[in-house]
């Protein structure tokens, strides 16, 4: 007991009394407060996110249904201005991030209101139409029903081909679910249909949500506040590990269309309108499409461009995690003193090295910011690439 209470002070008290947290504040030239250096914190968070290095399959062609709870509980104002609005904002950011990281995937939206669920948008590959539909009308009433949502989505997801990964992400604000029948049956159906359900709760941990996620292999997390909610939501953007029984390896036919020249006039097959210049021609049936990635309306071929594939490829072969380098007191001439990525000095206070990392393959040193950037956005180590 005495270890817990240090001189009768709690941990938060110690932060003020002993560590003098106010001294971390600094002013810059114009007298404004400088933001507190949270680099080490952010870096620690990022390291926690790195998965083990074992190679596992990931579902790259994902068909995800995002379920938004618009029941009475979504009008609670514990998230400013209300849960519903906060969820919608984060969902918009999530959709953009999702298409960034998974260009070959599709997203659809479903809402739960008044005890029934309603499909807002069909499953599709363009983020703009989804976001527009989401921001259209946001009003909440009635109860939430998990079973109706799962049943509806099960009906739609059963039609997609077997090489696609079927996922559901439920953003649940209510504390209960009012179902017309036995939800356990629905859960069994979803499991059989290989649908992976994940839930992010906004109020409290609910047993039935946990059960759904456990049974279908998804993840259940509960958000503490708005920023935590956004973090949890964005964690679902990179492709999840594929579950052994659900993964089916197939050969998928894809087309790589050429971009049309500037002077070409053609009637595009998606808008039924004459377009001048630009556009892509399907290599099989020569129909014109406006944007990639998409499915050709005439012959059904999946049309992608090579950067889209490359973006998906990075998830399978991530950059090896860098090793942390403990602070070296002695300044040795052979070691570089600047970060290889951004050329910022690694030497801070006097002769001490600031915490930094080094790549195990090329032995170059990088600062913490570059470390996060390389692993999460760039997906290539500059040191290794410059050596080849």
């Amino acid at each position, binding site marked *: 007991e005495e270890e817990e209470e240090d001189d009768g002070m709690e941990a938060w008290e110690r932060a003020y009394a002993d560590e003098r947290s106010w001294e971390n504040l600094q002013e810059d030239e114009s007298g404004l407060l400088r933001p507190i250096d949270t680099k080490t914190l952010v870096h620690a968070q990022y390291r926690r996110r790195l998965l083990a290095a074992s190679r596992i*399959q990931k579902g790259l062609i994902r068909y995800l249904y995002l379920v938004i709870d618009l029941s009475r509980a979504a009008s609670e104002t514990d998230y400013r201005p209300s849960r519903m609005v906060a969820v919608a904002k984060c969902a918009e950011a999530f959709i953009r991030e999702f298409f960034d990281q998974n260009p070959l995937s599709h997203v659809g939206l479903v809402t739960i209101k008044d005890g*029934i669920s309603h499909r807002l948008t069909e499953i599709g590959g363009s983020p703009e139409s989804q976001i527009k539909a989401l921001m259209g009308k946001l009003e909440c009433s009635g*109860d939430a*029903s998990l079973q109706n949502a799962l049943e509806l989505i099960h009906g739609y997801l059963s039609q997609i081909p077997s090489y696609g990964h079927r996922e559901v992400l439920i953003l649940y604000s209510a504390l209960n679910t009012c179902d*017309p029948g036995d939800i356990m049956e629905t859960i069994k159906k979803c499991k059989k249909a290989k649908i992976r359900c994940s839930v992010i709760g906004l109020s409290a941990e609910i047993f039935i949500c946990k059960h759904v996620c456990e049974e279908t292999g998804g993840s259940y997390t509960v958000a503490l506040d708005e920023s935590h909610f956004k973090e949890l939501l964005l964690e679902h953007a990179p492709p999840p590990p*594929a*579950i052994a029984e659900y993964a089916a390896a197939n050969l998928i036919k894809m087309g790589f269309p050429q971009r049309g020249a500037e002077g070409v006039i053609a009637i595009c097959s998606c808008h039924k309108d004459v377009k001048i210049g630009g556009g892509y021609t399907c290599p099989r049936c020569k129909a014109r499409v406006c944007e990639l990635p998409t499915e050709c309306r*005439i012959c059904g071929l999946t049309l992608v461009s090579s950067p889209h594939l490359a973006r998906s490829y990075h998830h399978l072969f991530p950059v090896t995690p860098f090793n942390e380098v403990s602070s070296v007191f002695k300044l040795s001439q052979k070691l570089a003193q600047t970060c290889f990525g951004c050329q910022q000095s690694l030497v801070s206070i006097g002769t001490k090295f600031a915490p930094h990392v080094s790549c195990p393959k090329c032995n170059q040193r990088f600062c913490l910011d570059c470390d996060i950037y390389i692993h999460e956005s760039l997906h290539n180590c500059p040191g290794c690439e410059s050596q080849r």
Partner: protein
Amino acid sequence: MAAITMAAKYKTTVKEPGIPGVLKMMDDVFAFTPNDPRSAMKLKVDFRNIKGHKFSKDGSKQALLNLTQDPEKGGGYIFEFNNFTDRNACRDFVGKVLGKFQALASKQNDQPVSEKSTVSVEQLSTTEMERRMKLLREDSELQKLHKELVFGNILTESEFWATRKNLLDDDYARISKQRTGFKSAMLADIRPSTDGRTNKVTFSLTPEIIHQIFSEKPAVHRAFLNFVPSKMTEKDFWTKYCRAEYLHRTNNSVAAAAEAAEDEELAVFLKHDDILAEEARRKIRRVDPTLDMEADLGDDYTHLPDHGILRDGSKETTDAENDIARRTLAQDVNRHASVVLEGRALDIELGDTRTVAEALARSKQESSADKSDENANLERQERVSRMTEIEDLQATHSLPYAELCIKDPREYFDSQQVNALKALGSTVAGSRTIDHSLNTEEAYVYLLNEISEVKLQGLHNPIVQSEAALKVLSGLTQQISSTRYNLGKNPQESVLDRLPKRTKDEIMLHWTSIQELLRHFWSSYPITTSYLYNKVLRLKSAMTDIYQKLKAIKDVQSDFRHQISLLIQPMLQALDAAFAHYDAEENKHSKKNGAKPNGFVQ
């Protein structure tokens, strides 16, 4: 579309050879005239007598169309056609006419015209026909397309509509199939609204509330079935019920007892619910052994002073003197919860209270018949086995992940390189490896020499001649900017708007039909049945026709020739691609099945 004439054979049964003749169908009547003028088999039948039509599947031995009179007896007029296209044309015509008549008939006497489908026959329900006709009426483009393709015998009705399922499928119907569960709010605990000025207390009951009351209080349900409409009207029943509720709420047990003594029906509402009591007794015998009552005791603070759950802000008192039932809040909440968790048993619309009550009674009977002790035992055992493992002590059992086994991609690229080199190497006589690496010293010297040379002589060996480069650049710029210059001045105007209306419509129509044809064409590959093969042949002939038409348009001399040809070019390209694919597939097949004369797989 007013009449259709076709050569056909009339027969009364499928097995008959049939009498050859001519079948003529008009808007309200159809007539059959046999070829042999001596034959007595002339027919003239009003379509009103025909209740339905059946036909054999495309690709079966006979192209039959059966116009049935009586759905039960199955008798009718059977016509055999020479080929399926004829039969399909007649069938579609008949379908339309029948749809028209049936729509009229159903409005008059609400007769459901449901045709029992036999094994090899395709039926169209009247609603389907109506929806299709409505869609055709509303969308003139669709109608034009439909006319061209279906009546031109290029596509059949079913094929045409198969791609348009999303138009026909009523999305709303799918949503309304969802049922809602009981609301978690306790609606059965109805609250009256009081009018401050007068002494009136108003209770409002919606069908949802009534449904919940019936589910939660079986005694009230039974009373309703017994009293209404024999002893009192529904309104009286609910008035008495609300009065009983009000008496409960006021906690005035003496007044309640007095009223109960007066009015025996009211007394029913004030007594304990005996059906519930009976159920509870039964349930106690089958209590779940895994239920942990010990943990509950420690949490029970409701008996302490100043604690407890208050109903409507007033503490509950128990009055044991009178027989008036007192339901604690806990009892009500538990009863409501158990009803909600059972789920909604009724599927019908909540409207008439009487029907709701009866349906509920029926479903209760069924469910009580189902329950057997054996089931309960099995459930209990399963529950026990599930609860014996302590969740917190278990490791998280997530489903195992799939291992990634991709060969090193560099191997693939290296092997490709080797292949490429081999291909090159076969043409070039051998290849010597040249060592191109220089050390820094040599590289520096080389660069110095080059630079000094350039300084002396200037760059006189450019990759591209400057005059040629200039010509190409100016030519390209002109080409790129010309179309945009001509057409981009007015952003609202598009290329099509500049063309005369007739040409524009023609081109658009051709374009829509090409889209449709190509879609069907590409979806027919790979060809696995002869039906698909025939379909592809039909499509190909239609495509050739359009190809010729487009070529003709392109060759017409007009002011806009250039634009038109630019527009038509991609369409021709698409058609060319389809033809090329067809030819390639044909060659593949003929190579595979050299012996077969036709070359398609049955």
